[in-house]
């Protein structure tokens, strides 16, 4: 035992106390792991190789280096502050340090504090006054899991000191370590991301795994093939060092861009013989370099990453499509695709077949159509855009008047689809007139003020169309940053008088089926065949008036308008009153039109809506420059808006997806780039990747919203499922960043989501009494690759992690597949395990 003394007089002496339980196959009283760690085999116990005053045995007990006189167990600092004594030392993880005390030397020492060793400077504080006498610090070992291997040894080797069966091996740690010490090393090499591109700089990764031993050694590599090192690719080092206990290493392979048409070139990487290891069955691998001068095709992974942003998730056939024409042309082609509408699908279902929903459809049945189009629509880009818009221009059926109106909900969604490639001004108008919005934000049936009875126009829609759908609360610069006044304060975009004035504009609107020549149809429209659902699908119309209405109090007919006839001032623009002497035709419609023009032409709309869409599609924290470029396109300028029309959605889409910040491979290395994918969309992406289907051809995937805290068109409020400025506690907040989607990734959904994935992967996505309606994944294309693990993992990498699986995850997948527990397991089990691990990983959950 090495003890360090201190006290009124600082004392030091050595005691000897044999540590039991260390790995010592050679029986020399020194830990074999320590000997391996410092390459210190054959040292005499009582020697002092570095002449630092500590014997080799003491250095072994302290876990320090016997060849380095600066590495040993000693007090590095000792000082008193008032009545407190502090002592410092350098610890080692896995060691335990006891602070011991005795009043009079010669009596028994007692432990007064214990410290876990850390890989850092450590300090003890002692209250002198209450503990007069002598102190010493003693280093010792623990074997927490009582497996015969010291904690320090386990930590050095990468084992779990708290579990006798680290990594859940059936063999205990001592047996595994002793077997490894007498076994040699076998080394294998694998590649992931086997095609890299000259003009897209994301590297491929070579993975080298060691099996057998635990010692340190060096692996030799050679690089051959048609590509020239240092010219076509950056030459990695020719050797790879393995530390003790290290089981894997990986090296990035990056292409170098040039202007030469060279065709595809290959890099062949081989393990070369060397000291301390044998080469396993996987002795070489290769990577291809795609040459943009001779072949414009983008790589699979570049296409997969783009599809992760622009659709609900990549599929094998979409990846092929994008590769065939390139990203820009694929987007243009999407603009021409037929709209994958939802409402007609819902109307076509047989309700009684779908679980006897007499009088249906019910709210949840909207998901049938939604899933159908999420899986099969010819316009996946439009579907993705409409979903993003549904999280900005929010309606919801979770409570209030839209519960039970799935036809109307999907009619609204189809309206979003239609305008996704149109113009934001028309979208804003269609939203304003949609009866579902009229119900959700309660401007349907809104009447002008009547101060005599203390009635005022409903302000709900007037507020939210400005705060959430167009301009936001604060004046913005084109790059999305807030404008500041002379005192450095943000400047509000509107005040409450704008709200009350705009509320007066949205008066006189009601059901589109009504007859506007009849005053009472404003409240009770005639509904043919009692098809009340239809009222939620016809755009609202305006009761211009005046109407002759019976007044109970006056006991006579009075003339009433349902739309406010006076002037309104909105955002500094005066909207004219209707002159009773010379009334304007369709004054109410025109009044709303003029108000929508004022809102739409506010300079905030581009940066406000542009930033929200970037957040939904590409990255949570776009740079100011990226927002400014998207704003420019919205405002009618820049390279992506050839028409020059303000609010053109196609231009906005081009500007978002073709921007360097969305496309450049460099962004993969930016720790602040990317976003957590939405809980529900992670599930949809999984279904798309493996072509989930049922025998009936339908997707009755209901009642999974609890698992995800999310379901399309069912947010808890008009503020969507999460807020654009949400900051999870920790590094994201500390860095001043936002991560909206983390608002619904809690300790609850953090578990229910992987559990939903697990049951879906092992069994099925939904539960239905009718087996024809059960939706299952189709893993057959993956199982077909079972004998080619490289191709199999690459396939999953492209579908689930957008081509950017980290080498650490690749390593742990290979490690799992090679474990004895996987011998004899079914192909399906292996595939299911891989998919579960990848789909629940941060590589799949985060789109970089």
């Amino acid at each position, binding site marked *: 035992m090495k003890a360090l003394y201190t006290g009124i007089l600082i004392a030091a002496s050595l005691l000897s106390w044999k540590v039991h339980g260390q790995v010592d196959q050679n029986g020399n009283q020194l830990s074999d792991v320590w000997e391996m760690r410092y390459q210190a085999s054959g040292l005499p116990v009582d020697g002092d190789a570095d002449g630092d005053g500590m014997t080799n045995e003491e250095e072994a007990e302290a876990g320090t280096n016997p060849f380095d006189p600066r590495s040993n167990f000693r007090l590095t600092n000792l000082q008193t502050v008032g009545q407190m004594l502090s002592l410092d030392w350098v610890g080692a993880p896995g060691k335990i340090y006891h602070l011991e005390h005795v009043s009079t030397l010669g009596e028994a020492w007692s432990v007064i504090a214990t410290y876990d060793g850390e890989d850092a400077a450590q300090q*003890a504080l002692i*209250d002198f006054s209450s503990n007069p006498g002598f102190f010493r610090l003693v280093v010792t070992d623990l074997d927490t899991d009582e497996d015969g291997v010291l904690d320090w040894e386990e930590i050095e080797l990468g084992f779990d000191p708290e579990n006798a069966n680290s990594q859940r091996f059936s063999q205990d740690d001592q047996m595994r370590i002793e077997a490894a010490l007498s076994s040699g090393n076998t080394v294998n090499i694998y590649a992931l991301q086997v095609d890299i591109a000259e003009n897209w700089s994301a590297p491929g990764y070579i993975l080298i795994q060691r099996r057998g031993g635990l010692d340190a050694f060096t692996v030799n590599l050679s690089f051959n093939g048609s590509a020239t090192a240092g010219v076509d690719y950056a030459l990695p080092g020719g050797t790879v060092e393995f530390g003790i206990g290290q089981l894997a290493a990986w090296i990035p392979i990056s292409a170098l861009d040039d202007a030469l048409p060279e065709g595809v070139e290959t890099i062949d990487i081989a393990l070369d013989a060397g000291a301390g290891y044998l080469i396993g069955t996987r002795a070489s691998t290769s990577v291809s370099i795609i040459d943009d001068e001779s072949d414009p095709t983008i790589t699979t992974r570049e296409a997969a990453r783009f599809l992760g942003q622009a659709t609900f998730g990549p599929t094998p056939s979409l990846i092929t499509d994008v590769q065939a024409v390139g990203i820009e042309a694929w987007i243009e082609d999407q603009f021409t695709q037929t709209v994958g509408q939802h409402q007609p699908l819902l109307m076509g279902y047989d309700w009684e077949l779908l679980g006897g929903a007499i009088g249906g459809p019910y709210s949840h049945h909207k998901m049938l159509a939604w899933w159908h189009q999420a899986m099969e629509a010819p316009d996946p880009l439009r579907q993705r855009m409409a979903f993003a818009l549904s999280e900005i221009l929010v309606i919801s059926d979770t409570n*209030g008047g839209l519960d039970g109106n799935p036809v109307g909900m999907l009619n609204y969604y189809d309206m979003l689809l239609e305008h996704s490639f149109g113009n934001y001004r028309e979208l804003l108008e269609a939203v304003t007139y949609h009866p579902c919005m009229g119900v959700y934000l309660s401007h349907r049936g809104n009447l002008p003020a009547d101060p005599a009875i203390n*009635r005022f126009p409903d302000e709900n829609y007037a507020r939210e169309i400005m*705060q959430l759908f167009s301009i936001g609360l604060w004046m913005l610069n084109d790059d999305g940053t807030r404008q500041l006044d002379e005192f450095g304060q943000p400047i509000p975009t509107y005040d409450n008088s704008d709200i009350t004035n705009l509320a007066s504009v949205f008066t006189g609107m009601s059901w589109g089926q009504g007859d506007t020549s009849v005053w009472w149809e404003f409240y009770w429209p005639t509904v043919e065949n009692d098809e009340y659902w239809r009222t939620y699908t016809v755009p609202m119309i305006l009761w211009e008036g005046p109407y002759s209405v019976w007044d109970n109090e006056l006991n006579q007919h009075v003339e009433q308008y349902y739309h406010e006839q006076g002037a309104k001032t909105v955002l500094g623009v005066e909207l004219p009153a209707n002159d009773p002497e010379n009334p304007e035709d369709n004054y109410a419609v025109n009044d709303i039109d003029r108000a929508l023009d004022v809102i739409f032409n506010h300079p905030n709309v581009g940066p406000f809506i542009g930033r929200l869409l970037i957040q939904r599609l590409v990255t949570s924290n776009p740079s100011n420059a990226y927002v400014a470029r998207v704003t420019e396109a919205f405002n009618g300028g820049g390279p992506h808006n050839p028409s020059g029309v303000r609010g053109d959605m196609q231009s906005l889409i081009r500007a978002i997806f073709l921007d360097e910040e969305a496309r450049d491979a460099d962004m993969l290395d930016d720790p602040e780039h990317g976003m957590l994918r939405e809980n529900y969309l992670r599930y949809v992406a999984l279904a798309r990747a493996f072509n989930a289907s049922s025998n009936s051809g339908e997707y009755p995937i209901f009642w999974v919203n609890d698992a995800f805290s999310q379901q399309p068109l069912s947010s808890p409020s008009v503020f969507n499922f999460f807020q654009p400025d949400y900051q999870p506690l920790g590094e994201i907040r500390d860095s001043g960043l936002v991560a909206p989607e983390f608002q619904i990734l809690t300790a609850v959904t953090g578990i229910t989501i992987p559990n939903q994935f697990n049951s879906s992967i092992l069994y099925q996505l939904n539960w239905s009494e009718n087996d024809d309606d059960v939706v299952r994944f189709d893993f057959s294309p993956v199982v077909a690759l079972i004998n080619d693990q490289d191709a199999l993992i690459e396939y999953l990498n492209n579908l689930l992690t957008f081509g950017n699986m980290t080498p650490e995850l690749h390593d742990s997948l290979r490690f799992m597949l090679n474990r004895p527990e996987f011998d004899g397991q079914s192909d399906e089990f292996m595939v299911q395990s891989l998919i579960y691990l990848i789909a629940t990983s941060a590589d799949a959950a985060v789109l970089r």
Partner: protein
Amino acid sequence: MKGNPSLSRRQFIGQASCAAVGSTALFSTLLNLRMASTAAAQTVTPASDYRALVCLFLAGGADSYNFLVPSGTDEYNEYAGVRADLALPQADLHTLNIANSIGKDLGVHPGMSELRDLFNAGNLAWVTNVGTLIEPTTLSQYQNELVNLPLGLYSHADQIKQWQTSVPQSGEAIGWGGRTADLLHSLNDNDRISMNISVAGSNVWQNGNQTFQYSIGTDGSQGLSGYDWDWGGYPARGAAIDSQMDIEYQNLFQKTFAQSTRNALDAHEEFSAATQGIELATVFPETNLGSQLRMVAQTIAAHAALGMRRQTFFVQFGGWDHHDEVLGNMATMAPVISQAVAAFYAAMEEINEQNNVTLFTASDFGRTLTSNGEGSDHAWGGNHLVCGGAVNGANIYGTYPDLYADNPLDTGRGRLIPTTSVDEYFGELALWFGVSSSDLSMVLPNVTNFYTPGAMGPLGMMG
């Protein structure tokens, strides 16, 4: 159990441990400080000392001038005049027996008879016309912009945030429950589970600078299926899950994601062990709010097993944005509150924690007194209830305002300027919970604009 133990020593340690969160290098120092303080701490906070705050958030902006209504004829007529088609019938109100007269009679919504009973029994109080303020504000100051006003008045998102932060001049999302926990979490013997537990997902109130919130569902915490299966290939798969969660990512989103899964799993193992087998005899209503409060009650019953002496809980009941159909919607929703709160109080009596647990309500804002035609719009001050054995119940705190149109608090349409700030309201609760009066402005930075911390609380509500 009333009164505030002196916490200066513990608070010092609390701050030390705050600094140490996420910094293993400081761990030994922390350990040592804790050891040195053990003797003192035990005399200050006996193991039996327990307190919990439960925030019931009524999301959407409850029309709380229909929760608490003037029942005397003159005042009722003023109320009925301004509320027009939104007025509740006078005869349907449940009249309260107010201990210290406020010069007017009040009743509660017809669907809140249980709350009336709790009030009359002295276990519930109302705080009236309370809302977000930076400093005391009059109508002319408001109109002439002579005071600092809350950012984004009348906006849901902003006011939800400010009711939870109590800092209306800032958009920062650190809640006063979180700041309280930053000060007091070291009173607990468990660092692995947050003292801030939400049964309603992420919220601002429980976000601290150092304190995370722990989310559970109405059935408690969840484990990862298949993770511990020990047959066939599952041990290898389970080990791979561990490796997958332990990958050290550079990307902050990936890193945060991986950590959140690991944290959820670790917390579950501890939480489920502590709460396993706890069943209460009290019957809760079969509503979502009832289920949330039942889970809170079960967790409180497990506080000793969890090593907790201070806990906060967040539950939520949404759907109060009644721009339409106020009367009909409230007729179904007010009883949900009343029955669930009554069941919760009964459960606290069952486990004899009724004097250690205080439930309070909050909401985005009050609503306009005037109607938009069967509905009301976003406004400002509103009325809130506080329930628990430690409350000086059967009383009304703050000033119940006159409700006639264009009264001196009315900024238009019956949007009333609050006469009691959220700081005064929450200051009462924070002091009772154990924040010392000298630390109160760390939790509620604006509180000294309304109240000089001292022996008495701002409202006298908690004794």
